[in-house]
């Protein structure tokens, strides 16, 4: 069976929803982080699919940009998580609520 655009988009949407769900319900910072990556890659998948089905390379160029930026973001984000852990010895988000009034 040949996969159409709808199937690609459905997988992409599913991945995005899973990622968002993980971001909202998981407690561990690292897992939240991975879920964020999942959401980014869901978007990448959708862009690649659009590019493929439109016979247009713009979407793939966009994907490359996202991958580059995500790499930079991962390095900064992980560094922050490590710094927070060194400072507070916690990796759970409910323990990081000091901005609360």
């Amino acid at each position, binding site marked *: 069976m040949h996969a159409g655009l709808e199937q690609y988009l459905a997988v992409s949407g599913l991945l995005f929803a899973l990622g968002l769900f993980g*971001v*909202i*319900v998981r407690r561990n910072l690292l897992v939240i982080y991975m879920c964020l990556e999942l959401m980014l890659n869901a978007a990448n998948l959708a862009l690649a699919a659009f590019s493929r089905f439109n016979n247009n390379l713009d979407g793939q160029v966009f994907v490359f940009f996202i991958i580059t930026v995500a790499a930079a973001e991962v390095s900064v984000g992980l560094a922050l998580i490590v710094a927070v852990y060194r400072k507070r010895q916690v990796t759970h988000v*409910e323990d990081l*609520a*000091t*901005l*609360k*009034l």
Partner: protein
Amino acid sequence: MSLDVLPWIILFLPLFAAVMITLLTRHNRTWSAGLSIAAVVLGFLLSVLFVWNAGWQPATAEMSASWLSVGNLQVQFGLHLDPLSVLMMLVVTGVASAIHVYSFGYMREDSGFSRYFAGLSLFTFSMLGIVLANNFFQLFIFWELVGVSSYLLIGFWYEKASAADAAKKAFITNRLGDFGFLLGILTVWTALGSLNFGVLQQKLVDDPTLWGPAAAGAGLLIFCGAVGKSAQFPLHVWLPDAMEGPTPVSALIHAATMVAAGVYMLCRVFFLIQPSGALPAIAFIGGLTSILAALAAVQQDDIKRILAYSTLSQLGYMVMAIGMGGPTPAMFHLITHAFFKALLFLGAGSVILAAHHEQNIWKMGGLRTRMPVTFWTFCFGGLALAGLWPWSGFFSKDSILAQALSAHHYVYFVLGLGIAFLTTFYIGRLLVVVFLGSSRSAACEHAREAPPVMAWPLRLLAVLSLVGGWIGIESVLLKAFPGPSPEPVAGFSQQLAGPFLHAPAAAWSGILVFALGALAAWRVYAGTKSDPLPAKLGSFSRAMRNAFYFDDFYAATVIRFHDFLAVIADWFERWIIAGLAVRGVHGSTELAGRALRRLQTGNLQTYAFLFALGVAVVLYWVLGK
């Protein structure tokens, strides 16, 4: 240097001194006093120089600079120089000089020495501003400045509650009169379209009917200002309380500045008031004030209060003279009064200082031998006030009585004689009780004569009180108010005899009531230990002592009414403004804040959820339609 600059310098010298003292020399007593005294004495010398060179009627009668213009209201800042203002400038700077020098001795132990002299200079500046003003607007500003400086000086010993209250009372009572004055000025501007004295006078000369129906109202409103400043009935109550200030300040208020301002202003705008038809009311108020105050003075025990009521009475005399259509006698009396009342107050000051701040005359006595200079100068002041020939008071009082006769106001003539009798009586009482007999307190037994810095101003003023009546002051004033009064004669001897020649009835009756008053005072008070009058007069004496209960009457009516208003305003402020309006706004804002605070959980994932929800809503909004 042109002569025209001189009046400006004279006007601004005291202000310069006041500013310099406040900014620079506050901590240096000698410099402060020196600046202030130098400014006013220099002002006096320059005034003399000015009169010497420019005469009483300077060639440039008016100098002004445009100050502000709003619509068709043009306000100038300028000087008006005519015999009236030039003479008054001379008197103000002269008398103020004597008082400044005297203060240097009187206040030397006070810690607020520099502040005192700054206030004194500001006071002199304000008064000179009134004297020289060429329009109503400027006059009003200086008028208020006089009010402020009197507030500062009456409340000079502000740590004393009574002094602070007296200062407030003086200021507020004056403001009441000033409100009427301001309305009067506005009426003048609406009716005549100008505020400049010269222009106004010219307009009324060109067209006497210009005044129209507003005349009487405007005249009375302008008179309101004088009622406040010159302490006429019913706003006279502040003046006796103003005795809380240092004694030289009282001298300044009573002689050269402040109370003189009201009478001077009435004379300055006499051309407005005369055709307005307000004169009978003015004469009535003046006469009433004069007789009430003279009666009250008879039964006071505080040496300064006697003099204060005496001032009230004499001011009433002047206002009465204006009301009878005689600005010349009024101004004449104002000037001679400035000499002898300053003298009397300064004399009283040195008595008070010698008696260790005792002001009750029944605790003094026998000061004649211990304080000869004060005694003799005080005698001169007393005789001038009582009006014995040839002291100055005789001539000015006589000119007022003669005015009453020539204007056919016989009631006021008799009233004037009665007041003259009372005047002689109370000042005789003061002299006899304070200076003759034997000492009634230990302090007075060791009283010492005042130091030279205080004695010389007394001597100078004593000479002026003696000669003030016959050195040609009246003829200068007649240049300012050419009128039906007989042209005065030139020589001293002719001036001395003048009153007996052209108004013998007034002159001889004046002498007669003086003799009666002096005799009565001597008979009642010579050798007494306490006042025999209360026993003889009973409740009337008590009424006199309490100045006919005006203070109590005002306390029971005006002040109580204002207290009532204040209570209502307080309630409204507390419950409606502060409670409902302010607390309402603040309360609802705070409540909203408390509720919204719940959203701020600090939990990242809540934010993420809400963010996602928001995005979903926006997407639905954008795409779902």
